[in-house]
């Protein structure tokens, strides 16, 4: 039994850290909603909805600033150690990544506005699947953070390659479409941009999942560091 089990001390720090985590969750949920709203605007050719999405981005930016200020204050004033330190450093990185997810939602919404006025092109199964996969990765990465569940985080990492391949597929299909029909050039380019932004959202979801593993297991797995370490051991 650890000492913490028998004589748990209430810590003022836990309360403050909990508040910052709550703010980050609010921010992440908003960013996820923004991506979904932008994709719906693409699908439904709804320029007005796209404009709403663009205008709502400042709320995410404001949350990022608040989280950053409070996290820095906690670092300076509470001198967190071990899991507390990892959590705060990860919160700073995650809030930065989530802010960028919000920016990608804005980019997608801008494409949606242009698509609403462009020559209509048929919907694409590859794109629909990609949109579901990328937003699903984001949702699950946030959920892994909430539950502090590294196993759930690992399932997110495994799905990134599929989204990358879907991005390539959308690119190829759009290229073919544009070659056949000059009217498809404007909407085709916009769809390529939407896919590219979604691919980036999936990358950011991957970062978030890696941060969850770092918080819980104190292991850095990005850039396949663990693989290199293993290779190093074999060399010796």
């Amino acid at each position, binding site marked *: 039994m650890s000492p913490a089990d028998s004589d748990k*001390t*209430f810590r*003022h720090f836990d309360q403050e850290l909990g508040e910052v985590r709550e703010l980050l969750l609010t921010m992440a949920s908003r960013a996820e909603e923004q991506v979904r709203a932008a994709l719906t605007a693409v699908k439904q050719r709804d320029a007005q909805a796209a404009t709403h999405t663009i205008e709502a981005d400042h709320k995410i930016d404001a949350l990022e600033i608040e989280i950053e200020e409070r996290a820095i*204050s906690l670092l300076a*004033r509470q001198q967190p150690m071990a899991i507390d330190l990892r959590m705060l450093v990860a919160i700073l990185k995650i809030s930065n990544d989530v802010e960028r997810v919000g920016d990608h939602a804005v980019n997608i919404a801008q494409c949606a506005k242009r698509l609403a006025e462009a020559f209509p092109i048929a919907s694409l199964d590859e794109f629909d699947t990609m949109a579901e996969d990328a937003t699903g990765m984001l949702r699950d990465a946030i959920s892994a953070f909430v539950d502090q569940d590294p196993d759930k985080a690992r399932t997110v990492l495994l799905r990134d390659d599929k989204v990358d391949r879907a991005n390539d597929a959308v690119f190829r299909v759009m290229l073919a479409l544009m070659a056949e029909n000059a009217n498809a050039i404007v909407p085709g380019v916009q769809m390529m941009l939407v896919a590219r932004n979604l691919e980036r959202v999936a990358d950011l979801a991957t970062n978030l999942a890696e941060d969850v593993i770092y918080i819980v297991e104190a292991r850095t797995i990005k850039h396949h560091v663990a693989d290199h370490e293993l290779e190093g051991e074999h060399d010796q």
Partner: protein
Amino acid sequence: MATIRVTAGGDAALETRDVSVFYGSNEAIKQVSFEIPRNKVVALIGPSGCGKSTLLRCFNRMNDLVPSARVTGKILFQGEDLYANHVDPVEVRRRIGMVFQKPNPFPKSIYDNVAFGPRINGTGGNIDAIVEQSLQQAALWDEVKDRLGHSALELSGGQQQRLCIARALAVTPEILLMDEPASALDPIATAKIEELIHQLVADYTIVIVTHNMQQAARVSDYTAYLYLGELIEYNDTNTIFTAPTEKHTEDYVTGRFG
């Protein structure tokens, strides 16, 4: 000129105006003017000899006990000059309690330590209830309720310090002065005292002197930085430890000197 960014907005628990303290001809505190807002924790920090303990001791006239000490300027407690002729220093010390660096329980039972103040003050009411409430407030009740008759000297250092806090609270002060209250304690006992400070501030104004900057950062709402008897900067604690206004403060909190 000192940077002072804290005002009590007309609700100061304590206010100093041009306060200087002399030990003989040595000016240990130099014309310090600032306000301590009610129900806040204010930390006094600075290198050894900067005058932080001297300033703290002015607030309940402990310097009266040092023959060579002389205080000039005004210290206002609820608008009244603490050093006016008609003011009784004993009454001042009841309303402005103090906890010292080294726990100093009386060689009596736990119960008698806490009951001591209310008894000599002739406080009406139920002494048992005052003892329990004070020990509860000091987060010690659960640990000692079954052995109130035991000697206070049997307690651990951290428990003795919380007993001293309970003893100070038993006479219903409005302000608690703490002079390095955790410097003789281990990290766990220190954490308990710090949590206690967070709880007590709902009912009391707390002024704490600490040479441990991290402790000031953790527990206080506002921080005053003193150097060679001068108030260099008085700001909200967040600012002091993330972006102080004065270069001098920055050099101190980053450990570049002191």
